[in-house]
């Protein structure tokens, strides 16, 4: 040793002297919070753009919580766009071998239920049950091309784990009467994220109803899509049954983990996001969603008691991949159903076009 303990003490003192002159920024926690607050948009407590006070009141009844809305909530479109963009890139890489899909096409849960969300003020506790978050959950629906995945965005009391919240909704079942789920509602589950995969541990009740074989593959993708959308990750999903890595689930080989199936193969090609099923809205009613359409065209109609009260058609931005659509309709108070249908490229010779529908109430 060529130095003394005295040298060490001098170094220690000089470092502490130097450090003691540093006065840390007293606003730094606020700066950090501003940056960490940029959660995936559906995990943020939110204000729906279409949700007028009336609609929010109706929603409040529907989910049994009170939504804390006040003037401080500002829409945060830029953040949403950023996140969707980055998702598009990630999933674009992941689906790079699918020539019929583009990055934008494979965006996970690509449209918010109403296009806007917002942050809550700092003083709203995140765990407060009066704050709700939106989770995506996939279900099955019958289409002319057989069963396909369809999605609901659902408001649930805010909790830490988006994937488990979404799975809880998925297992509990859909609100839309056109959707179903083949999973037993008593299925127990937990989700763990690793660096390059998502692990879903399931315990299927022994005396429950198994998923029918013909729906097995779609049921597995239902689970995969729901968890991936909730976590905004497209990493493979590894399934554990009763705590052990599963080789097979509902007749599907899941031993190597399940990767995301191409959307055009498993999803219903027309998906309405707004309004949500049973929602109370005010006129004019904004209707929106996403669709993968031949020549980008769709037809819509509004029915009341089975009678068409209004109809029209529109175009999405791009054809043959998932792309957003939206339109507005003026309606008198009452209950309605909106049906959005892809135009039929086969002129009636094919299996028929896919469509999606929602029932809603106009309150004023």
């Amino acid at each position, binding site marked *: 040793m060529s130095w003394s303990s005295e040298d060490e003490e001098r170094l*220690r003192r000089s*470092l502490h002297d130097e450090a003691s002159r*540093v006065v840390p920024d007293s606003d730094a926690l606020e700066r950090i919070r501003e*940056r960490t607050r940029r959660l995936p948009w559906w995990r943020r407590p939110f204000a729906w753009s279409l949700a007028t006070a009336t609609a929010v009141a109706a929603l409040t009844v529907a989910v049994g919580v009170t939504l804390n809305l006040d003037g401080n909530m500002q829409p945060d479109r830029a953040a949403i766009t950023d996140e969707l963009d980055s998702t598009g890139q990630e999933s674009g890489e992941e689906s790079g071998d699918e020539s019929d899909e583009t990055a934008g096409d494979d965006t996970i849960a690509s449209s918010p239920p109403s296009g806007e969300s917002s942050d809550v003020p700092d003083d709203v506790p995140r765990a407060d049950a009066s704050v709700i978050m939106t989770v995506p959950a996939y279900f099955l629906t019958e289409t002319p091309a057989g069963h396909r995945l369809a999605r609901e965005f659902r408001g649930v009391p805010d*909790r830490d784990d988006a994937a488990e919240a979404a799975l809880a909704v998925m297992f509990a079942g859909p609100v839309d009467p056109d959707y179903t789920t083949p999973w037993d509602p008593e299925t127990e589950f937990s989700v763990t994220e690793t660096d390059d995969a998502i692990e879903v541990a399931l315990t299927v009740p022994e005396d429950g109803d198994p998923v029918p074989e013909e729906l097995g593959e779609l049921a597995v993708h239902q689970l995969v899509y729901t968890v991936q959308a909730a976590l905004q990750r497209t990493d493979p999903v590894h399934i554990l049954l009763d705590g052990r890595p599963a080789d097979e689930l509902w007749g599907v080989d899941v031993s190597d983990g399940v990767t995301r199936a191409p959307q055009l193969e498993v999803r219903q090609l027309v998906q309405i996001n707004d309004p949500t099923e049973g929602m109370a809205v005010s006129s004019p009613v904004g209707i929106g969603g996403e669709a993968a359409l031949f020549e980008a065209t769709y037809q819509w109609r509004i029915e009341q008691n089975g009678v068409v009260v209004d109809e029209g058609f529109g175009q999405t931005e791009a054809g043959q991949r998932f792309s957003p659509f939206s339109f507005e309709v003026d309606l008198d108070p009452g209950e309605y159903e909106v049906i959005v249908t892809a135009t039929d490229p086969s002129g009636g010779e094919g299996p028929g076009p896919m469509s999606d529908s929602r029932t809603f109430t106009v309150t004023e």
Partner: protein
Amino acid sequence: MARGDTDADRAITEIYTHHYGGFVRLATLLVRDQSVAEEVVQDAFVELHKRWRKLRDTHAAVSYVRTSVVHRSRSVGRRRAVAARHQDDRPIDAPSAEHGALQAVAGQAVVAALRTLPVRQREALVLRYYADLSEGDIADVMGISRGAVKSHTSRGMTALRARLEEWS
């Protein structure tokens, strides 16, 4: 079970309260410029927030932030190496007549000399004599063996010896 942001927010606040100032001081010793140090530490906290789910406990989180601060300071240092070298060459300000000031200037001379050391020697010395970490913890933070920590510390001290001895 997955854990998430409510926990993460609480953890950030707790760790911030107890450690933010210390981390900024640590980073300032490593990078010289306090505003850069603040950025480095804030980046590390934001990263911690993302990772909280995997870390889950405060002790592991504090270690994570410390390691992150050291590594981030190193990469900032690399980008600023040229500018820093020029600054370190400048003469220390003339001492004032006051004894405390003299001591401070001597201390600053040591710190200035420290900043001219190779980055790993500087890190090893700062982690040991400012952060008071054990050799094992320093090895973990720097991502090197304990033997390497010893050798960096030893070389760093030897290089500083002349400066330290000026400090009577």
